Each structure stands twice: as C-alpha cells, then as structure tokens.
C-alpha cells in the first residue's frame, strides 16, 4: 500500500505523519498525537489544495502592481501553472478589491481576484 510522509500544520508540534492510502482513500494515519492530524492527513493526501497569491501589473494606476489571489483554493499541483497564466495578464486601473482579474484559471473554474484596490492615475 502506498505511504506518504507529511508534517501536520495544525500546531507547533508539527507531528510527522505517516499516511497509508489506496484508490479508495486513507487507510491508516500514524504519528499524529491528536484527531486534527488525521483530518489534516486525509485532506492533504487525497486532495491537497492551496490558495495561490501573486501580483499582476496595472496600467495607468497610482501603483504599478496589484495583488491577486485565487478566490478559493486550487489543487496544489497547479500552483506554478496558475502563476504562469497570470504572467500574461495586465489590468487597467482603476482596480477594485474583489474584482475578477482572470476567470477559470488553469481550467479549474476558479477566478483570480484582486486583493487590493488601485486608483487610476490622474
């Protein structure tokens, strides 16, 4: 049965978890000292996801860059591709916080949104 080692992030203990799993799911978690480790392991092994944050250039804004994030977490293996897709994007000021910058990033159906507002240069 495949086994994966990972570090629990729920508290500073940072338990080294050993997770046995197959196609049907998690079989066994060892190394955790509390229930949270088990829940973390399940999520992290089956569908590890992350919110990706980056920046994109702003045209005619009072700032040159606007910070952005994926509206919800996306599969971990798509982090780099997500940042690469954002490399081709430029956005015209004004930008409003929460504004959609890119739709359906990496075919995930998830939007990338602005995390700050940038006013237009006067």
């Amino acid at each position, binding site marked *: 049965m495949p086994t994966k080692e*990972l*570090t*629990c*992030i*729920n*508290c*500073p*203990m*940072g338990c080294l978890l050993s997770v046995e799993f197959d196609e049907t799911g998690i079989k066994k978690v060892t190394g955790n*000292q509390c229930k949270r480790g088990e829940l973390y392991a399940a999520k992290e092994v089956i569908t590890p996801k*992350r*919110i*990706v*944050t*980056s*920046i994109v*250039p702003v045209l005619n804004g009072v*700032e*040159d*860059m606007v*910070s952005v*994030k994926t509206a919800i977490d996306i599969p*971990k293996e798509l*982090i*780099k591709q997500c*940042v690469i897709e954002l490399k081709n994007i430029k956005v015209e000021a004004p930008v409003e*916080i929460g504004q959609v910058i890119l739709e359906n990033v990496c075919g995930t159906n998830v939007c990338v949104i602005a*995390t*700050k*507002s940038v006013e237009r240069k006067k």
Partner: protein
Amino acid sequence: MINKDIVIIGGGPAGLAAAIGAYEAGNKNIVILERDNLLGGILNQCIHNGFGLHTFKEELTGPEYSARYVKKIKDLNIETKLETMVIDISNELIVSAISENEGMVQYQAKAVILTMGCRERPRGALSIPGYRPSGIFSAGTAQRFVNIEGYMPGKSVVILGSGDIGLIMARRMTLEGADVKMVVEIMPYSGGLKRNIVQCLDDFSIPLKLSHTVTKIHGSTRVSGVTIAKVDDLRNPIKGTEEYVECDTLLLSVGLIPENELSRKVGVIINPKTQGPIVSESLETSIKGIFAAGNVLHVHDLVDHVSSEAYLAGKNAVKYINGLLEELKMIDILASDGVRYTVPSTLNVNNVEDLTQIRFRSSDVYKDAYVSVYFDEERILHSKKRILTPGEMETVTILKKWLIERPNLKTITVKIEKE
C-alpha cells in the same frame, strides 16, 4: 498648535485598531499620523493569505485584512494624515510632525498611542565577513521589491534565517521563477510557523538547513555565493563543515526590532528583552498618557493579536483621558524559568475589567511542559503544553476575581515547569 485628544503614531494594523478602539470607547477627537502615502503598513506587501483567522474567522491576504480596517476608519470619519512623519514627542505630549503639504505641525495631545511597528535586523548586525556586494537584501525589502514594485531582486537565492518572512519569501521568489537553493537557520529549530515550513518550503522541496549559518559572503560587485557551515551548541561554526553555495542573492530574515527612537527620545523606559516599552496592564508606558501596542511593543507572529492589543490600547487611552485609569496598587509581573519576557510588566487590579491577558514567549523549545502562574508563592495556574517554542507567542488569562481575593499580592510570576 492643534488640540487633539488622541494622537496615534503610525497607520499600520496597530494604529488602525487603536483608533477604532478609542472611537468605540467614546472619544472621536483622534488623528492617525502615517509617514507612508497609504494606510495599512507592512500588510500592503504581505500579499499571501493566512491573516484574520482570529479576527474575522476567515483567511485573508494582508491587503484584504488592511482594507477592512481602512474602510472602518473611513466609515467612522477618523482623521488620518499621510506622508506625515513624527519627529518628536515631548513630555507634555506635544507631538511634532513634518509633511510636504503642511510643513511642521504640532499637536497638543491628551494621550499618545505609539504604533510605529518594527523594522528588520540588517546585515550590519550579523558580522558576516565579506565585501559589500549588491544582492544582499533583508527579506522584507525583497518582499517590497517583488510585491509592490514588481522587480525581482535576483535569480538564485539563499535565505539566512527561517523566520516567517524568510519562509514566505522562499515561496514567493520560487513562484516568480527564482531558484531558491536553501533556507539556513542557525538555531536547531525554525523561528517560523509550522504552516509556513510546509506550505513555503516542503511544497517546493526547498531544503531547510537547521543548525547552520552563513560564514562568508563571496563576490565583490555582486554576490557570487556564500559559505555555509554547521554550528555547535554554542552556535559557533564547526571547522570542516563548510560548504560553498553558488547564488547571486542573499536574503536575511534574522529578526525584527521594534522601532522606538521616538519613545526613547521622550524617555519611555524600554524592556531590553523585547526592545519595546515596559507597559502596564492598560498598555501604558512609563510616561503617563503614552500608550504602546503592536510590533513597537513586542514583535508578534499574528496580526490578529496586534489588532486586539492595539484596540485595547485605544480604549485605555480614552479611560486615561476620562480620569478612569488608576496608578496605585501596582503588582509586578515577572518572567522566569524559560519565559523570556511578559507583556505587560505591571498590573493594577482596579484597571482590570473581568480579566486580563499576559502574553509571553518561551526562551527555548519545551515539550510536554507546564506553563505556571504564581501569585507570590502560590501557584494559581498550571497548564500542560505539548509544545512551547520561541516562535509562537503564548497567552495566559488572569481573572479579576483571583486578584481581588488576594489584596496583598505583590508579584505575579510566569514560568515554565517540567512538572
């Protein structure tokens, strides 16, 4: 001279929360003085997520967390002055500031709240041999270049120090295409949050070299590499363990220092452990009417704690103005046996509402140890902790009724015990 009840120095997360705290306590005569051209302080460049889990019960990025406070400040119509740098606070609470638009402005305050934050320890504080090539940045400076200006400071990177900013920048530089070779940490444990070790280093297979340090920086015009070495228990490099690592950039994430030039100048007493003012339970410094909160007081790991602390400072400043803060009946709070410091350092029972919190950090990593609080010789709290690390701030809560029951209490001691 302009009369203002409350002058807040610094418009970062602490300053914003302090203003809201004061406003909600009933005083609207407030001004926030900020030297940058926008509010929010360091949060503006912290574009990663993970902020606000305590305050808003959701995970926000730095700019989003800041935007919520800035909106509230605007909604409440609290006055803010940008590009305004405070140069002096006098004993009479006259705050002198300069700005391009208004020149020199003086405010006569009834209370001053210090919320200037902190800054990074620079290379000069480390005494690493080598020339002075370009390519050496503090991690926060690099963060500003990448996230605000949109410039990459280098292509192949070694990071010294595994504090949270260093870890965050390891991921950020990697995502922007740099080759982050390793994070080097002199201590046998990381100073950063576990979550950041996993999501910033492990996710990208970036090695963390514990008990290692940089012993030499190579290159005369641009960094060409660094020598790293293993260190012994006393943190001295071990001969024969040196290793050359090629890189064009060295980022330093080697600690933060509260920015207290103004506080020192007016004579506020500074705690040598925190490098921040010594404060009472009300977050009042050694000078009456001057309060402090956030990273200028002691370096926090979570902005949520900065906000709640500063909110309290704002509220207490109003209490002070209204003559409701008492000076008498002081109890000393001592840090001992593995506790590096406590905030606050003194306590007045009559100023405590229902409870008060003591924040502290351990001086080392302790596993399966107890955090104990003694009221003079009597142990009042004894709680088991799986782990205590210097990287994570701890809190103990003291109930007012415990204090009232012991009217002759002189000293509260916080310590770490094996059993």
